[in-house]
C-alpha cells in the first residue's frame, strides 16, 4: 500500500492548471477530492508521472440556479450537496443519492464532478446525471465546451474528456413541471459500491409523463441510460402496466456480468425491481409537488 513515485503540483489558478495540463496532460492525473485516485495510487493500479491537485482552485465549489439550470461547481463536495437545504426541494434525487455514497469520510472530501469524471461504471453520480440529462462544462487553453452526460461515458474509467481539459461545472436542467426522482441502491454493506443501483427521474404534464430519465449503475461497462424504458413512459399515464413495461425494458438494457456481488440474472432482476420501486417513489414525489 505504498504508491510508486510521482510528481505533485497544486496550481493556484485555473489558468496555471490548464497550462500545466497542456504541457503534461498525457501522463498526468487531476485530483479533486482524491477519494478514488489515492486508493488507486496506493494499490499501484494508477502510476501517473504527475498528480495535479486542483483542490485549491478558487470559486469552483458553488451550488446555484442559473437560467433554468442548476449549476454545481467541480469542487463541490458530496457533503456540500448533502447539506444544501435548497437541493432538498430543488432536486431531491441528488440528496437521495448522496446518502448512498460511501461514508461520511469520503463524502467530506470527494466531489461530484470528480466522481463523474472518474467514470467508474459502479459510480452513483453517473446514473443520476444520465437520468437528469445533465451536462459537463469542460475548460482547456483552447476554450470551453458543453458535454452532455449522455455520451460522455465511453467505457470503464474512460470518457470523452480530452487530456488537456478540466471539468469546471456540472449543469442540471431544472424541470418545467411537477417532477420527482429516486435513487435505489443495493449494496452489501454501507460504503460498498453498488451491486445494482437505479436512478429514476420523471416530469409530469397533467396526468401524463412529459419527461423520463432512467440511469443504471454497475450493470455494464459504463453507467447506462435506459433509453427504451424512458420512451415507453413519455406521453403515457403512469399505469401499473406502463411502469411494469418500463421496468422490463430497463432490465433488458442492463449488461451485467457474474461476479462476487451476484449473477447477471440477479442484477438484471434487481434493475427491474428498482425501476418499479423508483418510478413509484418518483411519481409520488412529483404528485406531491403538484399538490
Amino acid at each position: 500500500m505504498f504508491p510508486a513515485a510521482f510528481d505533485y503540483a497544486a496550481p493556484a489558478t485555473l489558468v496555471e492548471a490548464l497550462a500545466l495540463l497542456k504541457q503534461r496532460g498525457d501522463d498526468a492525473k487531476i485530483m479533486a477530492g482524491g477519494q478514488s485516485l489515492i486508493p488507486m495510487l496506493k494499490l499501484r493500479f494508477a502510476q501517473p508521472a504527475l498528480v495535479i491537485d486542483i483542490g485549491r482552485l478558487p470559486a469552483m465549489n458553488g451550488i446555484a440556479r442559473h437560467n433554468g439550470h442548476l449549476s454545481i461547481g467541480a469542487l463541490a463536495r458530496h457533503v456540500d450537496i448533502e447539506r444544501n437545504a435548497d437541493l432538498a426541494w430543488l432536486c431531491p434525487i441528488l440528496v437521495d443519492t448522496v446518502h448512498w455514497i460511501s461514508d461520511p469520510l469520503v463524502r467530506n472530501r470527494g466531489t461530484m464532478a470528480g466522481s463523474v469524471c472518474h467514470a467508474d461504471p459502479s459510480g452513483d453520480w453517473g446514473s443520476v446525471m444520465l437520468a437528469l440529462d445533465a451536462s459537463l462544462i469542460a475548460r482547456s487553453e483552447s476554450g470551453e465546451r458543453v458535454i452532455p452526460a449522455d455520451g460522455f461515458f465511453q467505457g470503464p474509467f474512460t470518457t470523452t474528456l480530452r487530456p488537456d481539459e478540466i471539468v469546471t461545472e456540472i449543469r442540471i436542467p431544472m424541470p418545467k413541471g411537477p417532477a420527482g426522482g429516486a435513487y435505489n441502491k443495493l449494496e452489501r454493506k454501507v460504503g460498498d459500491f453498488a451491486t445494482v443501483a437505479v436512478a429514476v427521474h420523471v416530469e409530469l404534464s397533467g396526468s401524463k409523463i412529459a419527461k423520463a430519465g432512467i440511469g443504471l449503475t454497475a450493470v455494464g461497462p459504463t453507467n447506462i441510460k435506459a433509453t427504451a424504458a424512458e420512451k415507453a413512459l413519455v406521453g403515457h399515464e403512469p399505469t401499473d402496466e406502463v411502469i411494469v413495461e418500463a421496468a422490463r425494458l430497463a432490465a433488458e438494457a442492463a449488461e451485467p456480468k457474474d461476479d462476487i456481488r451476484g449473477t447477471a440474472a440477479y442484477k438484471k432482476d434487481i434493475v427491474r425491481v428498482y425501476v418499479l420501486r423508483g418510478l413509484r417513489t418518483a411519481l409520488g414525489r412529483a404528485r406531491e409537488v403538484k399538490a
Partner: protein
Amino acid sequence: MSSTLHMHGGIGESIKRKEDARFLRGQGHFLDDFVLPRMAHMAILRSPHAHARIKSIDTAAASAKPGVIAVVTGELMAQHKLAWMPTLSGDTQAVLATDKVRFQGQEVAAVIAETKYQAEDARDLIEVDYEILQAITSPDQAKESGSALIRDDKEGQKDNHIYHWESGDKAGTQAAFAKAHKVVRLNTFYPRCHPAPLETCGCIADVDGVTGKATIYMTSQAPHAIRTVFALVAGIPEHQIRIISPDIGGGFGNKVPVYPGYVVATAASLLLGRPVKWVEDRTENLISTGFARDYHMTGDLALDKDGKMLALRVHLDSDNGAFFADAQPSKFKAGLFHIVTGSYDIPTAHVTADGYYTNKAPGGVAYRCSFRVTEASYLIERLVSNAAMEIGMDQAEIRTKNFIQPEQFPYTSATGWIYDSGDYPKAMDVALKQLGYEDLKKDVEARRKKGEVTGIGIASFTEVVGAGPGADYDILGLRMFDSAELRVHPTGKAILKLGVKSQGQGHETTFAQIVAEELGIPAQDVLVMEGDTDNTPYGLGTYASRSTPVAGAATAMVSRKLREKARKLAAHLLEAAEEDLEWERGKFFVKGSPEKFKTIQEAAFAAYTNLPEGMEPGLEGVHYYDPPNMTYPFGTYAVVVDVDKGTGQVKVKRMVAVDDCGVRINPMIVEGQIQGGLTEGYGIAFMELITFDAEGNCIGSNLMDYLIPGSMETPKFEIGQTVTPSPHHPLGAKGVGESATVGSPAAYVNAVIDALSPYGITNIDMPVTSDKVWAALRSKGVTE
C-alpha cells in the same frame, strides 16, 4: 472512572478496563509503532499464481535499486537450511519458495531496504519466470485421479490426501440408523473466512551482532510457544531468543501461527546485523495468513417416531490449503469437531474426516473458535432445525425434547467428551421468554398469510473450551497448561505475570480482578504483564477461549498460595494460631474478634520486614495449571428476520442471546466479548467469504471484497444470561471469548431458512447473501 477507582474490583464487578485509558488516547504501543535505531524495512514478493513451477528468479534489477540492502530468495534461505519450516500440525511449509509456488500469495522473495517505499519499488523489479500448473481449488478436485500433485516435495506423498480421522462408534451408529423412523440429512459447506484483525501481522527482528541475542517484536498470541518453535527451526539457543508481543490489535486466531515473514526477517537481521521490520498490508494478511473453516460437511440425524434423536453420522472433507498448518492440538486432526453431538443426548455417533491439500493459503486457524467447534456447532444446529422442519415439530420443542438434562452432568457424550456442567432447558427458557416466542410465532403466521417472508431461528450451542488437560492436549509436544507468577511488593501492590497474551480481551483488568478476589488486593493495585518471554512465565498463549479457563485458574491458584503464606504472616502479627484466623476478602481476623485483624497489605509488609522465625522472606509465587477437564459454555440464541422478496435482502429484526459461561469475572467485559462475537457471527453468516476462481485467484483479497460488518450492518443484540458454574474450575468460570461466534451463525441461518421454508427451501450455505436468497426464491417462483 471515579466510581471504578473506588471499587475493589473483585469477581462480578464491572470495573472499567484498565488498558482502555491508553487505547482510547491513541497511546497504545503496537508493533508498527516501534522504531529501532538502524532499522531496515522488508517487503515480500508473493506469487501471482496458485500453482506454478519456478523456472528462474532474476533479482539483478531489484538489487541495483537505490536503498536496497539485500534481496532474499528461497535459494539463499536454503543455504541456511531455512527454506522450509515446520507447521503447528507437524507438516512442513515453504518459507520462501524454491521449487514451486502452491498458492496465490505465497512468499517467493523478500527485499530489505532503507525505507518501505524503496523495498516495495525494488520488489516490483524482481523477475520470476513461472511455468503455470493446474490449480486445485477444492477437496473434490483434489481427490480426482490424475489431478496435479501439490506436495511433490514430500517423500512418499502420492496424492493430495492429508489425513483420515474418526471418532465415535461406527457399528453402533449403523445399527441405530437401521432402526430409525426418520433420517434427516444436511449437506452444507462452511466456507473459508478470515479472522481479519484490525492490525495485520508483522515483526521487527533485532539480532544483536555481539551477543547473538535475538529480540523479536511480534504480533503473536502465543509468544512462548513461538520462542520454542524459533529455537527448533533456527537453531538459536532458546535463552538467546526473546519474543515481545506488544499491544495487539485483535488476533482471533490469525496471530497464532509462525509465518514465513517472521523467519525471513529474523534470518535477514542475523545476516545483516540490523533490525528488520516487516508489516503486512491488508491484502497480504487476507491472502496468505491463517484462514478459518473451509469444511464440506454431511450430517445424518436418525430420529424415532417421537422426534427423539437416536444417532448422528457426520462426514467432512477439510480443505487445508497447500500446507497442513492448522493451529490445533496435535492429537486431533480435525480439531475438536467431534463435539458435534452438541447439546443433545444422542446415544451413539460416528464422525469421519478427511483432509486435503489444495492450492490455497494454509492456515486452518481457530477464528474466534476452539479448534473447529464452530463448524461442529453450526452443523448440528442447522441439522436439528431442518429435522424439526421435516417432521413438523417446533424447533424449540425438538431441542428441549433432546437436551442433555441438568441432572445428567457430568455427561459423557457419544464421542467421549465429559461435559462438566450445563442447564440447557433453562437457557432456552430464558431466551424464548425474552423473545416472546409464542406470540411471535402467531405474528409470523399472520404475516406469512399476507405474503410476507419472515422467520425465526434458534440455536442452542454447546462449546468446548479451555484446552486443555496435558494428557490429551499439546501443540508440537508442548502441553497446553498455562501459568501465573504473582509478586506482592512490601507496600501491598502487586505484579501479575502471565503466559497468555491479550489481543484486546481485557486481561489487564480481568486477571487483576481474580487477584483482587482471591488475595484481597484491589484490582487497581495489581499490574498485569504479558507478552515478553524474558519476563513472564511459560504459557501456550491466548486463543480458543483458554485464558480464563487455564491462566485464570493459574491466577486463582497462585493467589491462594500467597494467601496461605499471608495467613502465616497475619498469625505472626496477631500472635494468634493460624487455624484461629478467618479470611474475609482483604484481611484475616481472629475468629470471634473481628476487631482483631491484619490486612493483606500489612501481611505483605511483614513478609519483607517482620517475619516469623525461619520463614523465607518475600510474598511471591508461581503456579502452572494443568486443567483437569475442558469447560463447556453454552447458550441459546434466537433470531428474527424479514426477507425482501424483490431483492433477496435479509434484515435481522431481533437477536436474543442468552449465554452461560459459568461465573462472570467482569460482566461488562463478558458482555463486550459476546457483543463482538455476535457481530462476527453475523459477518460470517451474511458477509464474510474468501473464495477462489478456477485458476486459484483469491477473491476476497481486500476489505471491499472481504466484507466485515460495521455498525450500520450489525443488528441490535438483546443479551441475557444464566449462570451454571464449572465444577472443576477454581472460580467456576468457563471461557467466553468465542461462544457468540460459535453459536450465532446457525441461529441467523436457521431464521432465514425458517422464513423460506413455506416455499420448500431447506438450505442456503453461508454467507447468506441477497443473490443466493433471491435465487432460492425465484427457483420456487416467488417474485415481486
